[in-house]
């Protein structure tokens, strides 16, 4: 009797673990199939690889290259900068208000369209910040 209960319990554990594993496998395949859709943005390298749909509106992400941010004279809201993933880079034109944390050498996610000259016309700009936190006064020693 006691053995039977114990065996029953072991069977239950196997059953639960097995079903958990199979559901995990299903989820894995779903995620694998949706891989290209789960990424929020494409990097410049991904765009130039031609494997992704860049005809419609999409999001471009990467770092704002140092020294590339320029404002067009006379037009306060027009900015141009270069987004890079340190292999390839794309020039971006944007008209509008930039988020507070947008700056050079920092992450950015821009949604918009790829123009024919392989530049990027941004409609919306989101700033991506990194995972470093440090007090103000420490930074001034750098």
């Amino acid at each position, binding site marked *: 009797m006691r053995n039977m209960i114990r065996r029953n*319990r072991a069977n*239950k*554990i196997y059953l*639960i673990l097995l*079903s*958990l594993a199979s*559901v*995990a496998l299903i*989820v894995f395949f779903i*995620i694998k199939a949706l891989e290209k859709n*789960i*990424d*929020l*943005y*494409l*990097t410049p390298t991904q765009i130039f690889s031609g494997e992704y749909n860049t005809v419609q509106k999409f999001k471009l*992400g990467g770092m704002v290259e140092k020294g590339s941010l320029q404002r067009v004279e006379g037009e306060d809201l027009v900015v141009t900068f270069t987004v890079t993933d340190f292999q390839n880079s794309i020039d971006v034109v944007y008209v509008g208000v*930039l*988020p*507070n*944390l*947008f700056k050079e050498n920092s*992450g950015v*996610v821009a949604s918009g369209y790829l123009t024919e000259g392989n530049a990027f016309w941004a409609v919306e*700009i*989101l*700033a*991506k*910040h*990194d*995972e*470093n*936190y*440090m*007090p*103000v*006064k*420490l*930074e001034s020693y750098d």
Partner: protein
Amino acid sequence: MYKYVAKYFLLERVYRFCNFFANKALLIGLFGFFIMSYICLIILPSDSVQSEVYRILFVHVPSAIMSELIYLFLAVNGFIYLVWRTKISAIFLNSAISIGLIFTALVLITGSIWGKPTWGTYWVWDARITSTFILLIQYVCLLALKTSFTTRQIADQIISILSIIGAINIPIIKFSVNWWNTLHQGPSITTSGSSIDGEMLYALPLMLIAFMFISLSIFLRNIQFEILLRAPSKKEIWRDHG
């Protein structure tokens, strides 16, 4: 082993334990929370990039950790209940759902509030945010299912199964920022150290502990409630606390 553990989980005993500790845990938790709020809002230095906005981190991150820990707790209890049929783990499972729901909602709300001034948007469908939103839906489903059956045992079995299956989402939330391109930044605290400066970092685990005490107190009260639901005929419980 079962024999030795079981006697500590007699329902009357658990009930009395909960009654003894619930208010104390709440007091400790609230005290810690107010002290830590003062430290986080006023004493800690402001961040070099985000200046004052980053202070919401001390609510956002502990609630994120809590929401995931509570889900794992649900899954473990669901597993124990399905295999050993221990009443107490079903009670634990039922009692923890609402607390997990609160923390998941809190993490999404604080994240939204934080997102607007830093990223420039309240909401994007990136992997981290979407998977956390799915966790919220899971909690809502568990809470709804819990009261959807006339037989309590069936409800317990169903939510046990659902909580175990849903635990797959926890590693997805954890690693979403590593696996995919997301707007959410990568983890600050990894096995190789922390990228939050030590001057700010100490407040994080302390805030987490305060959150744990507050949720422990809600949890203990929920356990009492569940015990009363399940054992209405236990005369002595009613007599003592009727």
